[in-house]
């Protein structure tokens, strides 16, 4: 016995509904993938962008005679606590390279210590409330400010977080890339030309093709 027209058109409706559902589900999958990408980038930017800023302190550097052996003497002891140790170390060196400096004073923007930097970026730090208040005061006076982080691009590793940069890592990466390219490019192109233009379609050629596909999928850790 066959179904009535009514029954068939009823079925048709549900079949079309199912068809539409598949479309929306698949659309949703793509949207989900896009959402992953968006969340990922937003998160990375959010976490990474502060690194491009760095806290600097405006200090008066007195190149006194004492400072030529002990850099701490060149900077007012009150503001000393927020200045990076790296600055203090460099002062005697500067004075040795340029003897004319002795006896002069100059106002300079120098690196703040890592703790201050982290505090201003709103991260957890090991400072007590008094120190935090002092930093806030300095910020208000315009003595401490966030500037673009040039250290990050121009320096290598360092024990002091405020002085660490990616330069040495970048050089290493670029070197590795050059070597990789120098090996992969000629061999890759030559292999492709051989397989496409010259190779007979025999067992060996198939083996090479499968093997190349496979080479790309070998876990990199085994290399």
């Amino acid at each position: 016995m066959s179904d009535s027209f009514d029954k068939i058109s009823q079925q048709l409706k549900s079949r079309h509904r199912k068809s539409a559902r598949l479309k929306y589900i698949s659309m949703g999958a793509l949207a989900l993938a896009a959402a992953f990408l968006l969340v990922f980038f937003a998160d990375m930017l959010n976490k990474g962008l502060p690194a491009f800023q760095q806290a600097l302190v405006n200090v008066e550097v007195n190149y006194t005679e004492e400072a030529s052996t002990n850099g701490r003497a060149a900077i007012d002891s009150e503001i000393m606590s927020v200045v990076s140790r790296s600055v203090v170390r460099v002062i005697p060196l500067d004075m040795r390279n340029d003897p004319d400096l002795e006896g002069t004073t100059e106002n300079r923007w120098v690196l703040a210590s890592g703790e201050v930097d982290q505090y201003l970026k709103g991260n957890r730090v090991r400072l007590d409330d008094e120190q935090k208040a002092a930093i806030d005061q300095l910020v208000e006076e315009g003595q401490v400010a966030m500037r673009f982080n040039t250290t990050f691009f121009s320096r290598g590793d360092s024990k002091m977080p405020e002085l660490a940069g990616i330069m040495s890592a970048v050089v290493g990466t670029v070197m590795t890339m050059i070597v990789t390219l120098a090996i992969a490019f000629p061999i890759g192109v030559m292999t492709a030309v051989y397989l496409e233009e010259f190779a007979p379609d025999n067992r060996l050629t198939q083996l090479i093709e499968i093997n190349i596909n496979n080479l790309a999928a070998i876990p990199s850790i085994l290399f």
Partner: protein
Amino acid sequence: MQTNQLFLIFCSVLLLLGLAAFYVGRSKATRVRASGTSMYAQPDQYAWFTVVATALPAVLVSALGAFIMLVMGSEIPTFSLLLVSLVVAVVGLGVGMMLIRANFHARKAIERVIVWTLGGAATISILTTLGILLSIIGEALNFFQMHSFWDFITGTEWSPGNSFLASAGRGDGDGAQFGSVPLFAGTFMITAIAMCVAVPVGLLSAIYMGEYAPAKVRGVAKPMLEILAGIPTVVYGFFAAITVAPFIVRVAETVGLDASFNNALSPGIVMGIMIIPFISSLSDDVINAVPDSMRQGSLALGMTKGETIRDVVIPAALPGIISASLLGMSRALGETMIVVMAAGMRPNLSANPLEEMTTVTVRIVAAMTGDLEFDSAETLSAFALGLVLFAVTLSLNLVSVIMIRRFRDKYRVNNL
């Protein structure tokens, strides 16, 4: 003299010889031609042939010498080796000159050299695979001499303990157990989570892009998905460890579950996101390769579009889809950086993805980057693990490649 200088001198002499070969060869060929005989090839081709005849044997001889020194360990003085190579070059130049005759096919000879060079480049891939395999097998055999293969495959306890002391001559390394089951359980758990994310999202995205999306959307969506594949895995590792893991712990807390910060779920999910493009891209290609006549036939019989996709297109594209999933799976099994950063270090045989567990690749990294002695059982265990990993991923890849070949032959498409 320094080896470096020697080598430089060798290169420059060879270059000069090659240059000389070019001009001498060409002048001879021009002379023969000027005398009125017609030749098989152009003078320039004879010139290039003499260059090849001069340089190639010399380079081969020196490369062979270097290889013998490297492999056999026998001492050949660099100076005499390079000298012999230069003599060979001069002989090659002489032979090349002799061969310049009217009835010699210089062009074909050059062609043959080119084909052989290209073929050589193609076999490098096979040699690389063999090299990896041999180096892993060699060290893995060393490991299996210390610990039984059977214990390694079936043991459920991974505790290298103080096996590193044994190689240093202190203690005998008793109590060290190398049972790889917990490691592989962790690996497969994380892989399974990744596949649960990647297969549905990737496959459905591919269906949408292949069957529904207007060309504009497709043009945007496909490169967008491929961005996901281009992100370095270290960055994914950050994402998993810093953002996803704490998020999962917080969600688990609100539900009343106890999750570790090194839970298996976060690297699994992030790895799944990474694999989406592998699956969607290949599946999309496969779905596009299904011939239109099949869709038309199905629609003509009164099936709706959804039914056509479900009952006609997907079954036809199934080998390709499975092959894409297997490729993604082997990628997930071997993935290192995400799990190193986000998964735990403690081997743990558990079915709860919220617990800390470690993977094969994490153990390999831990064993190889430490300052342990190289021939200690713990370091060598990395090679045994690597061997098993290699075997698993190799078989997955092979099945995948063979399936996609079947599909290609069936529908006669060439761009897969």
